[in-house]
């Protein structure tokens, strides 16, 4: 068994690129479940569950997400890393259901119009594991989505698409919500937005996340702005 890197700080604050951070990253990317669990358990002896989520899990997943965008890691690694962390965190917290803490806006994520669910599943998994509360709407068409957003009083909506026609339908969501007087921030992501960097503005979104890590950063920024 490899040695676990020592954590020398009194509080649990693993710096980015510290041995612990890098080892955990590497274990996730290579889907070394045993190694990831060892590091996670070791970390738990030195930090609270909340600290582990906020200062280890979230930044590592954010980095892996960003590394996909640069081509350093593959989508399968992002997905399996998110799933592995989901397992670790759910075992730790045994969380159930959805409860909105007061300091988080009402948020939902959806695949609009098309049927490609992987991107949404990755983002949902990584955000949930990193402490974000959001409702998973699954796959919806425009009208159904607008109704749900209105009924649930959603203020931040994440929309994932893979196909260009689906991405263009974000404009209909924006127009429909405006017509109903809803103040909703829309964050979009998916292949069409990567291949056409102006598309998110064309369809009336408020931001585009190039990857799961980028999405996390934008949501944090929006939360800070709303405080």
């Amino acid at each position, binding site marked *: 068994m490899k040695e676990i890197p020592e954590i020398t700080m009194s509080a649990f604050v693993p710096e980015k690129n510290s041995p612990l951070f890098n080892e955990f990253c590497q274990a996730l*990317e290579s*889907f070394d479940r045993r190694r990831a669990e060892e590091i996670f358990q070791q970390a738990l002896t030195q930090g609270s569950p909340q600290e582990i989520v906020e200062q280890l899990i979230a930044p590592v997943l954010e980095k892996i997400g960003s590394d*996909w965008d640069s*081509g350093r*890691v*593959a*989508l*399968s*690694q992002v*997905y*399996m890393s998110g*799933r592995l962390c989901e397992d670790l965190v759910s075992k730790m917290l045994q969380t159930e259901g959805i409860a909105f803490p007061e300091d988080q806006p009402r948020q939902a994520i959806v695949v609009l*119009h*098309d*049927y*490609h*669910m*992987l991107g949404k*599943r990755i983002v949902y998994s990584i955000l949930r594991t990193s402490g974000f509360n959001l409702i998973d709407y699954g796959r919806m068409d425009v009208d159904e989505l607008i109704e749900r957003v209105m009924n649930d009083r959603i203020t931040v909506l994440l929309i994932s698409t893979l*196909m*260009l*026609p*689906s991405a*263009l339908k974000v404009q209909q969501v924006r127009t429909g919500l405006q017509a109903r007087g809803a103040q909703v921030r829309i964050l979009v992501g998916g*292949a*069409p937005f*990567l*291949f*056409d960097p*102006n*598309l998110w503005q064309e369809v009336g979104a408020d931001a585009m996340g190039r990857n799961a890590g980028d999405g996390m950063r934008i949501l944090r920024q929006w939360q800070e702005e709303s405080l």
Partner: protein
Amino acid sequence: MMTAMQRVLTTLSHHEPDQVPLFLLTTMHGAKELGLTIKDYFSRAEYVIEGQMRLLHKYGSDCLYPFFYAPLELEAFGGTTLFVEDGPPNSGMPIIHKVSDIDTLIPPKVTTTACLVKVLETIHGLKQRVGDTIPIIGVVISPFSLPVMQMGFDRYIELIYEHPQHFARLMAVNEAFCVEWANAQLAAGATAICYFDPVSSTTNLPRERYLQTGYPIACRTLARIQGPTATHLASGRGLPLVEDIITTGTAVVGVSSLEKLSQWKAAAAGRISLLGDLNGVAMRHWTPAEAESKVKEAIRQAGKGGGFILSDNHGEIPFQVPDEILLAIGEAIKHWGRYPLEWCNE
């Protein structure tokens, strides 16, 4: 002046033809030409034959592309296709609901599966029209990438990582189907087969995992396809795999606009031909001047010495791309694609 077939064969032998070949991979645009919905258009072989011929004459592409839509292969396995009015059809519900379903999966018989026979009739009809003057490009989804539709991408990734025995069984089924399907298209008149393999892209899978999975599958499958093949990663990255892809025995590789075409050229020149790399999604709002500029840049990066076919980077032009731009691409290649490309030296 060369025929399209001569032009393409010359570039594939890594010599310079009269002009850079253009593969304008339009599929759904045929429905526009015939005034049909996309669903109706793909319902009959005659429609697609007529649509492809009209597109050929309109845009001056150097190939015919009787590709219907990716979920057609899922249909062959008993799945469904969901049509939309303005884009490529989506695949319906997966046919593999749980891993153990793989134990009883059998490959469909090509010659008795109606949706596949329709494509074979289309290829045969096109061959009757053009003979050996225009390459006809058949399409298969690779055995390694088909499971994205058969079981959903998330569960397929889990299968690759966590269920090696069922993964091997699924690949055996898909390889048998893919080889029969590719060879049937060649027998019907296809000149070459485009092997769509996006899961093998480093966008989707790390190289070390590809070498254990998508790579040996491609080697085995391509060796059994009785004609030339082009490997297409459907806009995913592939440059770190260039040496591996070359050794699979494929003749052409599709290049993503996420990568530098010039780097691909440097890595591959004389050994594998390049197909790409115009950005189809961005193409929707190009001006004719931008289209000309993009064509010129691609030719500058990869045209010299042959071994290059200009195309989009995904393997299908989006339905939303207007005629004006497709015509501008055709005009630009006539102007800037004439060998010996002396302007590239300026």
